[in-house]
């Protein structure tokens, strides 16, 4: 097996960005760190700096004020990078569709690799989405 690919699959570091979400998704993401779910089992760690990350995990519908900041953060993540739209606000705007200050989903701003629906998605859904993302990566 390609050793570089193997290493990528085994060590997805996550950078969490809140682009105007309601907090529900953010705490569910943090809940995935806690002993009950413990995503560090898969080598996933939450990093504080986008430069250290592989997966940009974005929650919340993108508000107008934050859009440019979000793009800049996206540029700071070194290649290869993956974007995970976490929660329904990030997937499509969710309940905030048809509001004047939102972009209705992060795929309007940056390309997305994995959509995780749920409002908020359960911690198991993060693990599930990560597994799906990594499986796709492994097979590519």
């Amino acid at each position, binding site marked *: 097996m390609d050793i570089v690919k193997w290493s990528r699959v085994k060590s997805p570091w996550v950078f969490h960005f809140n682009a105007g979400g309601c*907090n*529900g998704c*953010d705490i569910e993401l943090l809940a995935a760190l*806690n002993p009950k779910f413990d995503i560090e089992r898969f080598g996933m760690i939450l990093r504080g700096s986008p430069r250290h990350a592989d997966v940009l995990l974005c929650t919340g519908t993108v508000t107008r004020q*934050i859009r440019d900041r979000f793009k800049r953060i996206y540029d700071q993540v070194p290649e290869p990078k993956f974007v995970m739209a976490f929660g329904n606000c990030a997937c499509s705007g969710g309940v*905030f569709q048809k509001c004047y200050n939102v972009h209705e989903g992060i795929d309007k701003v940056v390309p997305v690799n994995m959509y995780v629906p749920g409002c908020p998605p359960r911690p198991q859904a993060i693990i599930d989405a990560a597994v799906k993302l990594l499986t796709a990566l492994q097979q590519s």
Partner: protein
Amino acid sequence: MSDSTFTIPIGPQHPALKEPEHITVTIDGEYVVDVKVRLGYVHRGGEKAFEARTYTQGLYLVERICGICAMAHQLCYANNVEGLLGITPPRRADFIRTIIAELERVHSHLLWVGIAGHEIGWDTLFMYTWRDRELVLDLMELATGNRVTHATNAIGGVRRDLTPDMINQILKGMRHLEERVKYYAKAVPAERTVMKRAVGVGILKPQEAVDLCAVGPTLRASGIKRDIRKDDPYSAYDETPFDIITNDGCDVAARVLVRVGELFESLKILDYCIEHLPSGPIRVRVPINVPPAENVSIVEAPRGEDIHYGKSNGTDKPERYKVRAPTLANWASVPTMLKGGYVADLPITLAAIDPCMSCTDRIAIIDIGKRKKWVGSTDQLRRHIKKCHGK
């Protein structure tokens, strides 16, 4: 001012803030000189959206103003619309609402204790409190069907009844939780590194707290006895006995202690409500159109007072719906808390008001001392700060 002063931007993305928010902080060396708040990173235009949605749809929109105090917002909304309609929900629904609201307070305060631990680098506390918090979330899921956004309330009652089996499980969970909370109440103040970081940090004097209209645990930690559950009782709080926890410390440590105290009170309320849960229907039928009226409803969310103002116009959509989430009220007092403190105390002081920025916005530290320009650094935050400052 010496050359040693410089700029540290914190926010809109910062590990200490799980949500985007911006405060402009002017520092001199390690001391904070001035603080200015800039909100709006999570401004989504929700209030306008209420006007285009029916009252039922509004129930779920209001829940998503804040994912942590979802129940408080929804309860406030339901109270408000019921007030507009002039109906009262059945007593059993009142009790179920109280139970869920208190469960939410327990989960929110446990969450906060963990986050506060995380802010000062004590991840073990974070891990343990969040592990125990999972129990509350499981109970919530059992009782309402979802872990975080519960969708418990309907206009005119609640959507799901509590079965005896659920009640048993909640009681069992509460007993376990009580032990754990007792353990944390003992362990956290005993940890000297924590107390070193918390005592005397982020002082908010009682008079300032009143003047700046702080709310919730932040206010109560300054020794002011103000709690909406007592001051303006709603649901089943009018007959539920409980104490308002206050502390005269006025600092971060006091806010910790107030929250820990409230955890015990919440468990007490839960016990009372479960014991006295009346039987009967859980929901009354309500008309779709709401006659013209106006109403103010207030709820004590885990973070403080949550006030909604509603105005109806006879149709199935509100004329105007205004939401003021608790965190916004506390932002006004943040500058006072931070001024004169250490930069390193910033995260914990901010965490101490338990900010929930989706309700309200990010942090940047600007230095007035150093004129030197930071040419072309790619830092995402600084440009923004410059812009805000330029205004």
